[in-house]
């Protein structure tokens, strides 16, 4: 097993797994606290439209996907802030239309047989240096935002009505959280794929919620739990030659069941 660690692609995969896990812990906590899980799911699937655009036009995948996902996030923010009814219909719409755009653009790209599965279920073993730089930069940006605005974000996440009354710009922070979620989704697609993103963003958070008494500790604990899940999942993936994203998610889900069982028995 140890000799595997000497391969560069394994090292990259491990670093990417931990980076994405830590980011997912922070952003996943915000997504769950703000009840945006379905929204984030919508963005994750819509992001495939960005993948299609990137492949079709030849721009870097991360760039195309990020731009498209952020656009989807802004649209979702606009809808949820201004529209009172049928929000779920619009989320579902963005979800499906994004994927449809992606699939058609990939079809139209001459001579390109894209491995759709690698985007649906992740391809962490194909992570390269540039991907790591992108993930690292996002991690730094998120740390900066959270450190600087922790109390505003806490207030908005816990009780947005009261936050608005005490003069906090709730719409700004709500939109900011959605944009960061979109970027997180983009990098998490590389690790677990767009179908499984939501599981990575919510399972560790669900466990951490029970174990923590502050938003900060929830972010930290879910980041650590996610890192453990990702690393174990990767190990299974390597040892049994199975799809890494699915392996990571199953490790997470089984651990969640075990956790729930243990807390019932207490």
């Amino acid at each position, binding site marked *: 097993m140890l000799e595997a660690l000497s391969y560069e692609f394994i090292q990259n995969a491990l670093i990417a797994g931990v980076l994405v896990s830590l980011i997912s812990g922070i952003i996943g906590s915000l997504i769950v606290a703000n009840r945006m899980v379905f929204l984030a799911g919508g963005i994750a699937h819509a992001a495939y439209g960005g993948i299609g655009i990137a492949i079709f036009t030849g721009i870097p995948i991360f760039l195309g996907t990020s731009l498209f996902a952020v656009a989807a996030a802004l649209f979702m923010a606009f809808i949820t802030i201004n529209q009172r009814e049928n929000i779920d219909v619009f989320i579902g719409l963005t979800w499906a239309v994004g994927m449809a755009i992606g699939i058609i653009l990939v079809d139209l790209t001459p001579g390109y047989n894209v491995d759709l599965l690698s985007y649906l279920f992740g391809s962490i073993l194909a992570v390269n240096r540039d991907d790591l730089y992108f993930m690292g930069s996002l991690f730094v940006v998120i740390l900066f935002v959270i450190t600087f605005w922790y109390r505003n974000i806490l207030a908005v996440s816990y009780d947005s009505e*009261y936050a608005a009354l005490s003069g906090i710009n709730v719409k700004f922070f709500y939109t900011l959280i959605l944009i960061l979620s979109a970027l997180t989704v983009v990098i998490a697609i590389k690790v677990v794929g767009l179908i499984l993103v939501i599981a990575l963003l919510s399972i560790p958070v669900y466990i951490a919620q029970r174990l923590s008494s*502050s938003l900060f500790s*929830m972010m930290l604990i879910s980041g650590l739990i996610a890192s453990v899940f990702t690393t174990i999942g990767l190990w299974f993936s390597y040892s049994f030659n199975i799809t890494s994203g699915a392996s990571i998610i199953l490790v997470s889900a089984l651990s969640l069941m075990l956790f729930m069982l243990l807390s019932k028995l207490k």
Partner: protein
Amino acid sequence: MHKNKTRAVIEVKNLSFAYDKDLILEDINLMIFEKDFMVFIGPNGGGKSTLVKLMLGINPLQKGSITILDKSIRKSISQIGYVPQNTNINLNFPIKAIEVVMMGKSSLRTSLFGYKKEEVHHAMELLEKVGMQEFANSKIGSLSGGQRQRVMIARALCADPKILLLDEPTSSIDTDGQKQIYELLKELNKEITIIVVSHDISVLLEYASKVAHINKKLSFHDISSIKNIETKSDHICEVELLEMLGKCKC
């Protein structure tokens, strides 16, 4: 009209408000004075909550004016401590009671993770004031409805407001808890003005200094006459009492 010498903390003049074309409030005139214990009663949909939202600046003014301590709402919103109706939001959220209290202070918004010593100290004092100091480090979701309501009152007091505004503060609390909340408000009333929107008339009769009935229009009630109604008849249910208050001309 009022011979009260203390100054008006809230003055509402010719206020009307409509959602689309439905008139919710019509020509409301109201003065609330320093250290009043003012209670708004009235049927659901009668406009109580709308009036509260107008006072807080959540709903924009359409017609008429509201001044708080002789200034516009925007300028003096920090003088009102607000306790919202539903305190059962986000119960799984990992946050301690003391952190909720510290949210009430709108300054220091861009400070980093930690809280300043003075802030923690101030929040502890407020928790002590509402009798919740033992629960400072409890998760908000683990508290009972009444305990959580007290924490929300402490949060509302955090910015040292002159007025405390509570929307249905006892709607989800058992009878003992309700009594405690009102005793607490009575105590706080020695220093600040209290405004309560409520259904439970019987409890309020013991504590209110003024009662206004809102059903599109506003009418004041002399509390002593309400007490007479209650003592004259052996039994009177709250629904009947509410109806009578709506009709009476006192």
